[in-house]
């Protein structure tokens, strides 16, 4: 089972090391981790995707909670949240394949952000399903480079994740 956690932390040096160190030392599997500052400059937000059963999730949550720099932890079930990730994909493109690739780009409503003589760079933003689908479509042209930001997620409803309630 995959779980997406929104973790608010003090925006201080070393916090990322504390969190990632905890995961590796306790043998928890991180699938992705994205971090950036929030609307409050003193607080950063991490979106962590972990794999494990409920017991693992409970351990991850309570162990994270013990870190002094961790302010709050919120499990974001996929049914109640939206998630996005940004990916840059460099594909090989010659005179013949270029138009075909551009069609795919159109259909997926993504963007070409760089055109080279032998390659294109495509920017894709979307949920995990969309990322997987476009990647599969582009594979046969030859993906020469790929970089992802890691997933970020947010609750759909009015419930917000912020540091004030702690």
């Amino acid at each position, binding site marked *: 089972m995959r779980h997406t956690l929104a973790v608010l932390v003090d925006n201080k040096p070393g916090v990322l090391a504390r969190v990632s160190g905890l995961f590796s030392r306790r043998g928890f599997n991180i699938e992705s981790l994205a971090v950036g500052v929030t609307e409050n400059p003193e607080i950063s937000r991490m979106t962590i995707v972990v794999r494990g059963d409920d017991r693992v999730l*409970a351990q991850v949550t*309570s162990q994270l909670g013990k870190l*002094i720099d*961790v302010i709050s932890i919120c499990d974001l079930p996929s049914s109640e949240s939206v998630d996005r990730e940004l990916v840059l994909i460099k594909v090989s493109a010659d005179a013949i394949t270029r138009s075909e690739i551009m069609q795919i780009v159109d259909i997926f409503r993504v963007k070409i952000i760089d055109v080279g003589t032998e390659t294109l760079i495509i920017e894709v933003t979307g949920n995990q399903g969309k990322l997987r689908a476009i990647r599969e479509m582009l594979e046969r042209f030859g993906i020469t480079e790929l970089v992802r930001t890691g997933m970020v997620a947010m609750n759909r409803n009015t419930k917000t994740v912020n540091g004030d309630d702690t």
Partner: protein
Amino acid sequence: MTDATISGAKALIECLHNEGVDTIFGYPGGVLLPLYDELYDADIRHILVRHEQGAAHAADGYARATGKVGVCLATSGPGATNLVTGIANAYMDSVPIVAITGQVPTPLIGNDAFQEADITGITLPITKHNYLIKDVNDLPRIVKEAFFIASTGRPGPVLIDLPKDITTDEIEFKYPETVRLRGYNPDTKVDTDAVKRAASMILQAQRPIIYAGGGVIISNTSSELLKLAETINAPVTTTLLGIGAFPETHPLSLGMLGMHGTRYANYAVQESDLLIAIGARFDDRVTGKIDAFAAQAKIIHIDIDPAEIGKNVRVDLPVIGDARGVLQLLLSHLREKQGKPIARSGAWLGKIDAWKNKYPLQYTPSDTVIKPQYVIKEIHKACPDAIIVTEVGQNQMWAAQYFQYEHPRTFITSGGLGTMGYGFPAAMGAKVACPDRTVIDIAGDGSFQMNSQELATVVKNDIRVIVAILNNGYLGMVRQWQELFFEQRYSHTELTGSVDFVKLAEAYGAIGIRAEKPSEVPSAISEALAADRATIIDFVVDPTENVFPMVPAGAAINEILEQEVTG
């Protein structure tokens, strides 16, 4: 510099005064010179150890004996890394210490400067929290937070890394009155509903047992534990770290459980229908084969640390909170529900008494060779009120088994990490904290040699501890496993001929006594108790003696090895 400002070094001393620190165990070095200059005439007792590991363990022993925060101090680089074992040890056993390390000046950090070590990085996984001070204006707040974090909630070590330039920078000193930490709130409210449910589970249980750990001692809950046990008429077994939480002379006491626990404690756990765990963490040395542990029992787990719930065993009812608050509430619920003590059928306690009679702790006494168990019993006879500190190995287990502890904070041992070399410096720390108490380190010949340099410290500072070495000429506990599980191939465990402990004591100006025959044991002990200096007793004991009962690693705790006993 203006009149209103003081140096970071002086500010640190002020902070320590504010925290009520009376003693520091430390060792100087280049980057600490400004701080040591302040310590020269500060109103704080600084005890110069002979190895920084000794300072960390001494701070730990000081903390365990009193419940106060212990403080140790070391210079950058090797000084700081020498603290690491002591910090890890305190972390595993939830001991409140604050470790202060010097660091190279901030502009040099990250440049592989002389005696630079990334001690906050190194201690990340073995501290409750740590700090690198980058601005002298943060110093008072950080020290305040460090003491607060170390001593509240589930206690633990906190490290403060202090670059040299911070100690000479000037600030207008003001000690903060309160701590504000968004991500840390140790005031766990007791979950009233959970306590109510615990009360009804207890009332329904036919064969309840209380399993008490170090958390009972840390939270000063011993008197509530006694009340609970008597109210619900349930036997109490303790972990190694829980020893002293419940009087072992009490009829409901089962002593220690687990790998070297009493047979009756282990049998009782295995047959119980309700296990009430209080401030204990289901360590593998306690549970043995986890699936077989207390398999018939429902489990109530009372703990201040939510991360302990369900970590090793599935728990039927978690009760998160400070043990003392939880037990007080639980007692009031039980009293409400049942005006008089619970009249459980006598069958359960009867069964336990039968086990106690049938399977007591036992060893074969001897008139010719000193049995280590006999030494412990004689020490208990001579000074039942002593604070006993131990090293690690067989000595530790015999000290746990054969001394009868009645009060919390009278048994101090390295449980989670199992650190050889812990006992002697920890005993030093305990004696400094409790100068009027008799403090005895029950030692092994191997362990003692890991920090014997602190003999200089205890002699120079007139810290009158007694070290009772159970000298079996072996790394006895390892030898025992080799005997039992590795076909008696004693690979690199023989220590005989390593040192003459009496001469070693004398070389440092301590007293050395040797006992080679059982008849010499009582007089050696009384001589040490009457001594006007730190004393080592070298008890030359039976090298072949093993610790029993024993549950082999990975076996269920009722699969117990026992020795043949004669005489």
